[in-house]
C-alpha cells in the first residue's frame, strides 16, 4: 500500500464525508447554558483548520460540532464524536490518550483496535508529521469541551452517557 493510501484509509475518507456529530451549534447565550454544557473552539494555525465543539454531559446525543478543515481533521472529529457518543466519557478519555500516543509514535506505534475502533485507521497519519495536528485537533476540542461540561454538571456524567 502506498504511503498515500495508508494515510487516506477508506474509513477515513468515509468519515470525512459522512460525519457523525456534525450539526448546527446550539450556542446558548452565557446565562442560558444548561447544566453539563461545555464548548471549545480550536484552531490549527498552520493550515487554518478550525473546529467548534459542544458537549452536553449526560445527553443521549452528547456532541455537536462544526468545523472546517482537511479530510483528516473532519474524519477525526467524526470518529471521536462517535466514540464519545457510543462508549461514554471514560472510554473516550482512554481512547484519546491512546490516539495521542499513536500519533506521536512517528509511525512505529501499533493501534489498539479494540479501544480505538475506527480511529485505528489513523495509524498511517503518524508517518506524516505535517498531518498529526490535523488528526489531534478535534480530539483536543472534544476533550476540552467535555472537561468543561463535567465541571458544570451536578449529576456526574458516567459510563455510557447515563447519569
Amino acid at each position, binding site marked *: 500500500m502506498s504511503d498515500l493510501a495508508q494515510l*487516506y484509509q477508506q474509513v477515513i475518507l468515509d468519515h470525512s464525508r459522512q460525519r457523525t456529530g456534525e450539526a448546527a451549534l446550539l450556542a446558548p447565550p452565557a446565562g442560558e447554558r444548561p447544566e453539563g454544557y461545555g464548548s471549545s473552539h480550536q484552531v490549527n494555525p*498552520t493550515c487554518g483548520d478550525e473546529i467548534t465543539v459542544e458537549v452536553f454531559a449526560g445527553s443521549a446525543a452528547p456532541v455537536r460540532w462544526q468545523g*472546517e478543515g*482537511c479530510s483528516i481533521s473532519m474524519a477525526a472529529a467524526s470518529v471521536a464524536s462517535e466514540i464519545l457518543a457510543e462508549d461514554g466519557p471514560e472510554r473516550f478519555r482512554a481512547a484519546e490518550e491512546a490516539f495521542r500516543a499513536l500519533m506521536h509514535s512517528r509511525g512505529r506505534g501499533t493501534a489498539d483496535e479494540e479501544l480505538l475502533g475506527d480511529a485505528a485507521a489513523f495509524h498511517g497519519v503518524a508517518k506524516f508529521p505535517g498531518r498529526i495536528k490535523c488528526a489531534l485537533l478535534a480530539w483536543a476540542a472534544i476533550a476540552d469541551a467535555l472537561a468543561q461540561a463535567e465541571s458544570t454538571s451536578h449529576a456526574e456524567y458516567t459510563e455510557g452517557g447515563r447519569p
Partner: protein
Amino acid sequence: MARLRGDFPILDREVSGHRLTYLDSGATAQKPVCVIDAEQEFLTRSNAAVHRGAHTLAVEATDAYEAGRAALARFTGAGEDEIAWTKNATEALNVVAYGFANASAGLGGSEAARFRLGPGDSIVVTEMEHHANLVPWQQVAARTGAQLRWLPLTDDGELDLSALDETVDASTKVLAFTHVSNVLGTINDVERLVARAREVGAHTVLDACQSVPHMPVDLRSLGVDFAAFSGHKMLGPTGIGALYGRSELLNALPPVLTGGSMITTVTREGVEFMPAPQRFEAGTQPVAQVVGLAAAADYLTHIGMDRVAAHEREIAGLLVEGVQRIPGVRLLGPADPARRIGAVAFDVAGVHSHDVGQYLDAAGVEVRVGHHCAQPLHRRYGVTSSTRASAAVYTDREDVDRFLEALAGVRAFFGAAA
C-alpha cells in the same frame, strides 16, 4: 532557460520517488549554486564584523557588505543610502509601521512630525494584503487611534478602485499595498495608487515581495515612499530582507531597533542616531546573507529580468489554462497572464487544500496550501484556504505538466468527482 535548472542543486532530488516538482517558489525560492558558493567563500575568507573594525578582515567584510547594498540598490532602482537591511520583508514593513508609531509617541523630533498619526487620520490597506503588510498597520491604528480602511477586490481578483477617491482621502496618511498579490498573482496599478496618494499627501508603502523576484522593478520610478522585499524569495538566502525608503524620508523616520552600530553618541542621558540606512541596522547584521543576496541579484541580472518575467509569464499562462481545464477547480485571480505573475491559487471543489497538497506531494509536486498569510483575501472569495502553485525562473514545462497531471486525479481520489 532550460539549462539553468542545472544551477539549482536541490532540483536534482527526488520526492516520493518522483522527480522534485517544486512549485512553492512564492513561499521561498531555491538557491543557485553561485549563491551558496558566495556565502561559503565569504565565510572561509573574509568573515568579520562590519563597520566596526579597522583590521584587514573587517575592511574586506565591510566592502563586501556595502557592495551588496550597492548591488541591490542597482537591482531595484534605489540609491545606495535608500536600502536598509532587515531580516525579512516582514521586519522591513514593521520598521515603517513602528516608525510611524514611534513618531506618534513623540520620538524622532520635529523631523518625524510628518509621520505622526492620531484619531481623525486614516491608514488604507487592501483586502489582498499579506498579513505582513496588514497586521502591523492594524497595530499602529489600534495604538494611535487612526482609522484602518480597506480597498476591496473584484470578483476576478483585481483591486476594485472604483471608490479609490473616497477611500483614500484628505485624512489618509498611509496607503499600504502590495505590488503583486502572493495569492492571486495580480499585478497592481502602482502608478494610479501613487498618484492618488500624492494628491492627498499620503505616504505610500509598497510590499514588493512578489514583484522584485519576478519582474523588472525600479522603485524610484514607481515613486513609492517605502518598499519592502525579501532575499529568500529572489533566489537569495533566508535571513535577509530590505527596506527601501526615499532618502529624505528614511533619514526622518525614527529608528525602531536600537543598539550598537546605529548611534553616534550614547551618554547616560541620551543618544544620537546615525543617518539612514545605518540607523536601521542595529547590531551585527546578516553579512554573509547580504553577500549571498548580491550573488542572487547578479545571477538574475545576468539572465535579465525582462527574460525572467517573460519566461514566468509563459509558465503562468500554462498554469492558468491548465488549472481552468480541470473540472471542479476554480481559479482565484485574473486569468489573463499579462495581468499576473506565475503564482496561481485555486480551490478544488469538495477537497480541502491540505488534502490537495498531500496528494500532489505523493507525486513529487510541492505546492503551498492554506491561507498563505492572507486570511481576509480568502474570506473575500468565500474560502478559508486554497492551493497555490508558484513558479520561479527555474520552473519548466515539465513541472507544469507533472503538476496538472497529478491535479487532475485529486477529486476522484477523494471521492469528490461525483
